[in-house]
């Protein structure tokens, strides 16, 4: 098979620069289909592209935040097929065909999701950097009947979302308020 680059006047130089710059270009990209917040998105990614980075940098969905980038802080929490995960510890290519819900996908017809509303009402943040992750975890926890409804169970279930401003008290209050109003969905 003829490589089109072979006919390029600077084919040799190009090959050298590819080899030197990174293996990423050499390994090529793969087609990937995601359903992001209900919308089908088709894109191409390298194998080492991380789900968080693809959403932020390729799809422009910057609501999901990068904190530690190692699964320790929870800022990147989103839902894959309804399950909360750390998107920094997932390859995009692993999720071909999956339904991804980010914080941008919570609103309905321009209205805040009830959990977002509760965070607003309870001042459940200060700087707000962790908030998208906190909200995504909270939405999943409120739907999960296996997790207890008392404050201690909520705190334990939310321990993967760090808030360096220390808004924990108001975060728990917001979650319990959303539970009480029965508008968690």
């Amino acid at each position, binding site marked *: 098979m003829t490589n089109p680059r072979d006919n390029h006047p600077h084919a040799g130089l190009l090959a050298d620069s590819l080899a030197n710059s*990174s*293996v990423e270009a050499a390994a090529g990209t793969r087609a990937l289909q995601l359903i992001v917040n209900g919308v089908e998105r088709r894109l191409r990614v390298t194998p080492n592209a991380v789900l968080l980075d693809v959403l932020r940098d390729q799809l422009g969905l910057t609501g999901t935040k990068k904190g530690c980038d190692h699964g320790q802080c*929870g800022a990147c929490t989103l839902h894959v097929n309804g399950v909360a995960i750390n998107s920094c510890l997932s390859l995009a290519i692993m999720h071909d065909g999956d339904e991804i819900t980010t914080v941008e996908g919570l609103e309905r017809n321009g209205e805040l999701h009830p959990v977002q509303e509760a965070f607003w009402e309870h001042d459940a943040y200060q700087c707000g950097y962790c908030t998208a992750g906190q909200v995504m975890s909270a939405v999943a926890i409120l739907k999960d009947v296996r997790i207890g409804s008392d404050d201690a169970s909520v705190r334990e279930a939310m321990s993967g979302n760090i808030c360096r401003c220390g808004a924990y008290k108001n975060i728990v209050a917001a979650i319990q308020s959303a539970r009480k109003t029965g508008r968690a969905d």
Partner: protein
Amino acid sequence: MRNFDYFAAANPDQAIAAHAQTRGAAFLAGGTTLLDLMKIDIMRPPSVIDIHRLAFDQIETLTDGRVRIGAMVSNTTLAYHPTIRADYAVLSEALLSGATTQLRNKATTGGNVMQRVRCGYFRDGVSPCDKREPGSGCAAIDGQNRSLHAVLGTSERCIAAHPSDMCVAMAAIGATVSVQGPKGVRDIDFLDFHLAPGNTPWKEHALDDDELITHITLDAPLRSSKSAYLKLRDRASYQFALASSAVIVVTADGAIQEVRIALGGVATKPWRAKHAELALKGQPATRDAFSHAAQVALQGAVPYAHNGFKIALAQQAIVRNLLSLTS
């Protein structure tokens, strides 16, 4: 993260064949350890075989009473499964005491067994570490070795504690690791699966080249037993164990009829304390008997500069767990 060749396997045969094609290939399940270590350049597989969609996703009770868990069952699913909660409380509690909701949602049963140590010198990429770079030594022995380092099963080449909670419960329950490889399938006793560091700390498990974990099968639950996992740590949640105990006990007329004890946070592999079990069997269920068994469990423990407190802490983890289960 460096790039790599990626292959999504449709079945175990494909996965094993793809793994065998490239030296240093890695299986990718939940990715919570692998991708973390690839980001910090500690693991550098040239080829990644994605197995997370393989159909090892069931929890089944076998006719002989054992429970077979597919390697791809998530830590969350396993922890909340009705059979596990009813008959293996120690396992459910151990799982729920580990990591966070999001990590447990993604982490798999097979992956938990394969997780790597948390020693900072292993993870920093530059310090002497015989596990990461054979022949370079062990920075932890004379370094910061308070929380993530062992007092049991150590060697002069590695003292990193095995970080799993789930595995400690499985060591107490008794289990079999089923693997499939180029030469077929075989079973490995759970207690033989993880290897103490000895002179080859880079060799962490009993898998042969290109073998894939397909299931973990738990021994049938002990009749009339009670069990619990007690984890002692620096903060109340999302922290590795300083010391933990998995205990399964059967009492009759105030005496210990059967008991299983395993320790976490203090050993280089999930640590079954069989001598302590023997010391306790047939004894009255009293604090004195528990204290004696706890001392037996930690016989031979080697403290390092900052983690000597773990010996007393592990003993207390055994005593308190037994007291609570038998009270």
